[in-house]
């Protein structure tokens, strides 16, 4: 009897180990954030909320948080707009040079991120845009564009072209058709993609580490700089807040498109 169940037991065991591998660091991080000691370690010494209180007085972290929000918002808007339009066009219209264009739009994935960052550093330097948060947002949008396109193209490919024709035959002009038929049909995919884009831009490290300066420091770079020395539980506290935000995002996404829809969207 055990032989019949062996494959299932092995599978469950393997998945349990992988789940532990995925989740353990976050759990330990959360435990460390409540430590009353001053160094991250295991086991955590005592229980205290002092590091969360400490965070409230950190003006640098607060400024970095605001900067990151700005950058992530600009990046989300830019990549969602550009990505939605591109995905819809590529899914519905027959156009010349379609394959080269699709390949061109995949370039941000192929060029290494550090190289892209160096290139952007040059362009922004020439244009005098270093120190502009919106420019960093645009840079992040450009780098993450393939994900923005991919998330919508899944929904766009499921769009029934007959709906558009039906609306046209009822007398709707192109712009009206786009606003009342096409966009609402792909909206769940667009929203889920925008959510994922926001979180990805919020966590963007490589591009920001090349492009930020003291005025526009983002949270990921600030954490990196602070963590290079001794790691205090304050960083663990920030990590826990990050995790809570992620959980909130997952909950939101679940309400919008359902977790399985999100999974289908995420892989594009």
């Amino acid at each position, binding site marked *: 009897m055990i032989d019949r169940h062996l*494959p299932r037991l092995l*599978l469950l065991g393997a*998945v349990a180990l*992988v789940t532990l*591998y*995925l989740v353990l660091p*976050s759990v*330990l*991080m959360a435990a460390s954030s409540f430590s009353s000691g001053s160094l*991250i*370690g*295991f*086991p955590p010494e005592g229980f205290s909320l002092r590091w969360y209180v400490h965070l409230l007085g950190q003006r640098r972290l607060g400024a970095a948080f605001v900067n990151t929000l700005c950058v992530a918002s600009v990046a989300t808007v830019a*990549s969602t*707009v*550009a*990505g939605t*339009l*591109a995905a819809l*066009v*590529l899914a519905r219209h027959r156009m010349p040079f379609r394959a080269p264009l699709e390949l061109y*739009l995949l*370039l941000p994935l*192929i*060029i*290494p*991120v*550090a*190289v892209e960052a*160096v*290139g*952007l*550093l*040059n*362009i922004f330097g*020439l244009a005098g845009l270093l120190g502009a948060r919106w420019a960093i947002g645009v*840079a992040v*949008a450009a780098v993450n564009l393939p994900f923005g396109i991919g998330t919508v193209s899944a929904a766009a490919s499921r769009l029934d072209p007959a709906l558009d024709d039906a609306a046209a035959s009822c007398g709707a*002009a*192109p*712009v009206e058709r786009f*606003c*009342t038929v096409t966009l609402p049909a792909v909206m769940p995919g667009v929203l889920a993609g925008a959510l994922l884009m926001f979180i990805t831009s919020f*966590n963007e*490290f*490589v591009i920001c*580490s*090349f492009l930020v300066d003291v005025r526009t420091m983002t949270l990921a770079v600030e*954490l990196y700089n602070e*963590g290079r020395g001794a790691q205090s539980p304050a*960083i663990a506290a*920030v990590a826990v807040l990050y*995790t809570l935000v*992620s959980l909130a*995002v*997952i909950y939101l996404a679940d309400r919008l498109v359902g*977790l399985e829809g999100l*999974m*289908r969207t995420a*892989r594009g």
Partner: protein
Amino acid sequence: MPPSRPAEIALPPPAVRFPYAPHWRAFDLVNAAAERLLPARLAPAVPLVLLLPALLLVTLLTVGLLLVAEQSFHSVDPATFLLHRDYTWRNYRVLLARPQYLEFGGRALLAAVVVAGLCLLLGFPYAFLLVRTRSAALRKALICCIFVPFLIGPVVRAFAWIVVLGRTGLVNAALRALGLAPVELVYNLTGVLIGLTQLLLPITILILVPAITAIRREVEDAAASLGAHWLRVAWTVTLPLAAPGLGNGFVIVWTLAFSDMAIPAILGGGRADFITNIIQRTYVEAGDRGVGGALCVATTLVTLAIIGALFLARRLGPAGRRSGP
């Protein structure tokens, strides 16, 4: 074709007054404006116009790459950090002459291969269970476990690994409790591999799920009903059918691992720098835009070559011939 106006026929007054809704009025204005901006005869150009934002964003990156490539052909004056005016191959000769660039590049290459392999190995059973389980609750829990680390970001996750693997971390505390010697699992290549694999596991699983979903359960049942042991079914039926997804996953995870910067920097402790860390150190910290630019160009070419080779291998391999792109 614009909607045609109804002909003027004498009709009896309508029994019910039909109000013209305000949003119809609004759309009439919008349609008229759109008609004026982009007349119908320019309609074939509309797809290109809609693609323009995306194309502009990508062009930002390609122009940046070209600028860097141009810089790589000038050498840097060590006193002023300005570029000399003449074109020279000097930077590339420096790249080939100093062995450490090859060392960093090779390390990143091989590490990325190891990480991609591990991700596929660990991700496949997870994705398989996620797809095949009949319990919706378990599926939701499994998806949650993927997404939460995914959304936390590389910096925080790297620090979390230090909590687990560091000298005062969980693993060493357990070893000390058992009376064993402590193990150095962070601030070296091992830590980087562990951290990178965990970072890229969610993406691997997300890529493998559609591939496994496409395998019909009946095929495996048919093989089992013909008397095949479950291991044999997995090896001869499931894995070959999932091969395109595995190939895709390998390419994507390899690319992401090769170009990662945060985890090698934090978990490597300076002893396991990847080529991206070297680019940052050369171009930004040392200010050598010449050699840094040459490094960028070389890294891009290597990435292009390897992605191209992997892609071709998939297309020309047995799975590629059967299933196409």
